[in-house]
């Protein structure tokens, strides 16, 4: 009680009072406090204070931190904030003036929502600042200064006193030609920035002001990049910082920004397209639901914009919109139809490569249109088809992560349609290759992202349900892709593979999974059905896929102790891999898989008690791994499997009672494992396998009467396990096995003590007691930490009995 000696008396009183109705407080305290009026008064006062101020500490600390605000008069570098100009997604903007009075100048200070208190972020911020400071163009607001304050970065920029471009146009009732001319000024600024390798990333009317002289000025060039959590610098060292959302404005963001794909100058072309569309029509090309980022993303990536001319024709306030453009709805729609529709649609193409290749090209088409030349962009037949296809097959996907799968579907479908159309143009092969390649990449990436997210969500509160839900959605998406694939073997194979990966994460114990064992089995079955539907089952890729499906199904069957099915599945995998190896004898991976298939078959046979058959399988496992190693002596994995195969053979020999043969196998396995551990001493699985091998070697040696050699082998094994346990004290299996080795070491002395030639039996019992005691200590420690499973608690009993036996002998002698 360092702080308050009385708290020990106060606390029980308060606790009781909290549970009592108010009118009994006085009586209770009178009884409990006796004459101690001070104590009674204090307790009552504390209670009253508590009632009076229920908000004390009621809001978590961080919330109140967040509520703090930057105020007028605050200083940033040489600048003093005067008044707020605005607040946006990237931070707040303030009008500021020189605080040191050196000269009179007002600037706009932007306080960014970012943290640059980490060196990598700070370096990135500085680098970006330097690039932006070099950007000089009459239509670009200059960056003048920048710094950070307590980790919060700020930028001082030329203060532009102007009107947002869309409002300026409306207020001046600019007609289409005047709007296009103004838009060309914007293009000019963007083009200059692109030449300096700066992409704006967040072009929108709010960032384009028109000053009193009528010239457009662009604000915030490149600032989005500073805030981009995926930007260079953010990746330094780890990928943990990469989970944040990229800063952009959904209404003006390009599909690639929404998808998280690389941002290029084509991104600005797209945003300029949205800007142009809005300047011309006063409408949005489509209306992403900005309150729901995922729905917004789906819209941006999937929805086809309404043609600018039609938007005017269909707008409820068409009269007013046309009037703001000094026109009528009919005239305006006619003016937009044709060239301008095409220009806007080309800038707004979903795929960057289908947009104008540069701002120059966009600007040039606007120029050509203004002077009456034909524009160069063409409404393209097959692209139009593709766009239609995307629209038709667009998915309304809401789950995080899985949204990516929907994008894959859309992209796939559009690419396939593109491929179909091009086939008619006699370029089918290239397009198909490209389509398949893109599909592969996208499917891989999105499936992995979705599954990874699913597994990660799994660890959170209530995460299992969400994870299963995400998995279910992934399955639904795969179904859609499957239907779209129309039996295209390349795509079907990819989908089957995706199902196997889905199964891995759902519930294959060999992978990080969310515990959905039945779901995993179902996914593997689906994968197998798809793989079996493929036309050429002898094709290496198909055979490999079939083998994977069979193996996984075998693993699931083994996991639920359905040994019949496990045997059948592993047998099918084996047969398939044999054919595969026959077809591609140089494929080392296939040969290793074949060897492993023998091991799986052997393990099931062993579990069924068919030791002789199991042994034959392990021999094949051994032969396969050894022949692979013979051709690739540097292949460590092959070497490891040779060792494991010999260990399996040793177990088989031991079961059959031939301990000398077992010793030979274990010794050989041990030698191989020692070589491996020497190559890479930190590789825990190898060290663990070596330590485990020592237990069996010791057992075999003891069985053939070589007690000294057994003791040495077991002590080496115990040392190895202790080292492993030091590195990872919570590995229950290591603890259990260390105990087993110590117990076995005790057995050696027990044998010595009871042997006919025992010179000093009591020394043997003493030693045995010591080793059994050590084993008991290890297991008891696991038990005390609550880590000993119920079924393993009998080990404690066993060790105690052995110790008691030793003590009995010691007492008798």
């Amino acid at each position, binding site marked *: *009680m*360092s*702080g*308050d000696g009385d*708290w020990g008396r106060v*606390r029980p009183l*308060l*606790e009781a009072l*909290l549970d009592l109705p108010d009118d009994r407080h006085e009586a209770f305290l009178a009884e409990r406090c006796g004459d101690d009026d001070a104590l009674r008064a*204090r307790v009552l006062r*504390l*209670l009253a*204070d*508590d009632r009076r*101020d*229920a*908000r*004390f*500490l*009621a*809001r*978590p*600390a*961080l*919330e*109140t*931190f*967040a*509520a*703090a*605000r*930057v105020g007028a008069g*605050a*200083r*940033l*570098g040489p600048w003093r904030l005067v008044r707020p100009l605005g*607040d946006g997604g990237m931070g*707040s903007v303030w009008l500021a003036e020189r605080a040191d009075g050196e000269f009179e100048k007002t600037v706009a200070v932007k306080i960014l929502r*970012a*943290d640059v*208190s980490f060196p990598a972020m700070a370096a990135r911020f500085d680098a970006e600042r330097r690039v932006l400071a070099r950007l000089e163009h009459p239509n670009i607001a200059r960056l003048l200064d920048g710094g950070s304050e*307590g*980790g*919060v970065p700020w930028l001082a920029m030329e203060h532009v006193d102007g009107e947002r471009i869309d409002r300026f146009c409306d207020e001046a009732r600019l007609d289409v030609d005047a709007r296009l001319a103004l838009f060309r000024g914007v293009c000019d600024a963007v083009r200059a920035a692109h030449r300096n390798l700066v992409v704006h990333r967040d072009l929108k009317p709010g960032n384009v002001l028109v000053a009193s002289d009528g010239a457009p000025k662009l604000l915030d060039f490149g600032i989005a990049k500073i805030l981009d959590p995926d930007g260079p610098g953010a990746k330094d060292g*780890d990928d*943990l*910082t990469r*989970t944040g959302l990229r800063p952009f404005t959904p209404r003006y963001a390009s599909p690639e920004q929404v998808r998280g794909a690389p941002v290029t100058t084509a991104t600005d072309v797209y945003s300029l397209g949205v800007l142009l569309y809005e300047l011309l029509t006063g409408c949005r090309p489509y209306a992403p639901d900005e309150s729901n980022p995922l729905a917004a993303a789906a819209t941006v990536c999937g929805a086809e914009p309404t043609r600018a001319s039609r938007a005017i024709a269909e707008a409820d306030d068409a009269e007013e919109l046309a009037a703001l453009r000094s026109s009528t709805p009919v005239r305006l729609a006619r003016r937009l139809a044709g060239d301008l529709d095409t220009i806007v649609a080309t800038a707004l193409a979903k795929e960057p490569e289908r947009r104008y290749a540069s701002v120059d090209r966009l600007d040039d088409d606007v120029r050509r249109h203004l002077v009456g030349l034909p524009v160069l962009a063409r409404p393209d037949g097959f692209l139009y088809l593709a766009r239609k296809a995307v629209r038709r097959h667009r998915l309304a996907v809401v789950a995080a992560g899985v949204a990516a799968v929907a994008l894959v579907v859309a992209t796939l479908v559009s690419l396939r349609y593109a491929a179909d159309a091009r086939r008619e143009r006699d370029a089918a092969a290239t397009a198909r290759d490209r389509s398949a390649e893109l599909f592969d990449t996208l499917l891989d990436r999105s499936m*992995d992202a979705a599954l*990874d997210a699913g*597994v*990660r*969500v799994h*660890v*959170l*509160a209530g995460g299992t349900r969400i994870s299963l839900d995400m998995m279910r959605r992934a399955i639904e998406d795969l179904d859609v892709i499957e239907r779209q694939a129309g039996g295209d073997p390349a795509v079907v194979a990819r989908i089957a593979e995706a199902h196997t990966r889905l199964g891995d994460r759902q519930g294959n114990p060999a992978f*990080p*999974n969310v515990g959905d064992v039945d779901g995993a089995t179902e996914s593997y079955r689906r994968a197998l059905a798809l793989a079996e539907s493929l036309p050429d089952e002898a094709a290496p890729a198909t055979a490999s896929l079939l083998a994977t499906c069979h193996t996984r199904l075998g693993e699931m069957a083994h996991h639920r102790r359905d040994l019949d099915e496990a045997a059948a599945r592993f047998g099918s995998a084996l047969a398939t891999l044999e054919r595969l190896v026959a077809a591609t004898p140089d494929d080392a991976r296939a040969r290793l898989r074949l060897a492993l298939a023998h091991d799986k078959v052997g393990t099931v046979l062993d579990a069924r008690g068919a030791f002789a058959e199991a042994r034959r399988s392990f021999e094949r496992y051994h032969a396969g791994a050894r022949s692979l190693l013979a051709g690739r002596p540097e292949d460590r994995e092959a070497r490891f499997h040779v060792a494991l195969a010999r260990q399996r053979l040793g177990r088989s020999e031991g079961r059959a009672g031939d301990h000398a043969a077992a010793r030979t196998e274990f010794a050989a396995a041990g030698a191989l494992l020692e070589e491996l551990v020497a190559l890479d001493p930190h590789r825990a699985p190898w060290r663990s396998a070596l330590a485990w091998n020592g237990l069996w070697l010791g057992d075999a040696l003891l069985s053939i009467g070589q007690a000294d050699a057994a003791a040495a082998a077991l002590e080496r094994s115990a040392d190895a396990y202790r080292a492993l346990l030091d590195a990872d004290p*919570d590995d229950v299996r290591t603890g259990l096995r260390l105990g087993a080795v110590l117990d076995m070491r005790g057995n050696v002395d027990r044998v010595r003590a009871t042997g006919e030639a025992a010179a000093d039996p009591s020394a043997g019992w003493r030693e045995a007691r010591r080793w059994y005691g050590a084993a008991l200590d290890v297991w008891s420690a696991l038990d005390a*930490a609550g880590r000993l499973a119920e079924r393993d608690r009998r080990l404690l009993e066993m060790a105690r009995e052995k110790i008691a036996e030793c003590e009995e002998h010691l007492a008798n002698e």
Partner: protein
Amino acid sequence: MDPRQAPDVTALLRRVGSGEAEAEQALYALLWGELRRIASVHLGRRDAGHTLQPTALVNEAWLRLAPPDGSDWRDREHFLSFASRVMRSVLVDHARRRLAEKRGGGAAPVPLDEASDLIVGGGERPVDLLALDDALSRLDADDPALARIVDLRFFGGLSMEEAARVEGVSLSTAERRWRLARIWLRERLEGAP
């Protein structure tokens, strides 16, 4: 996705659970870095409109740090409790840095806002974070269970239910401890009786 490259928080937690000081330091450093990184981004976000939920931060840290397998509920609760303590030191450290900047004299930059970052958790009277931290350390000596629940609720942002689960006590016990802790702290922060 490569869980092999992520630090194994679960293993660290288990080692902390078995009283290993080195693991505790490692986990503390790991979490401190991560929470500070996450939190300070939010601390830089000075809009009253954005309400922060510390649990979101803690969950984010868990999501980033925990491996996708081998983590059971006990690990997670252990994590929440640990993270709440770390969050406290993140915030206190933030406040200390602010104070140092403020007292830094001539060359030091003037803080963005004179008081806001030192004063938290407004009730009738706002609370000086550093004084609260100090009082909590003393409460920890007096009645550690009460100090723990303040860490969980006030710094970790846990709901009463979550805090009860983490502490392994009933909801009513958690509520009672929370009130007692507030009573103790208020008396301490408002000056001796």
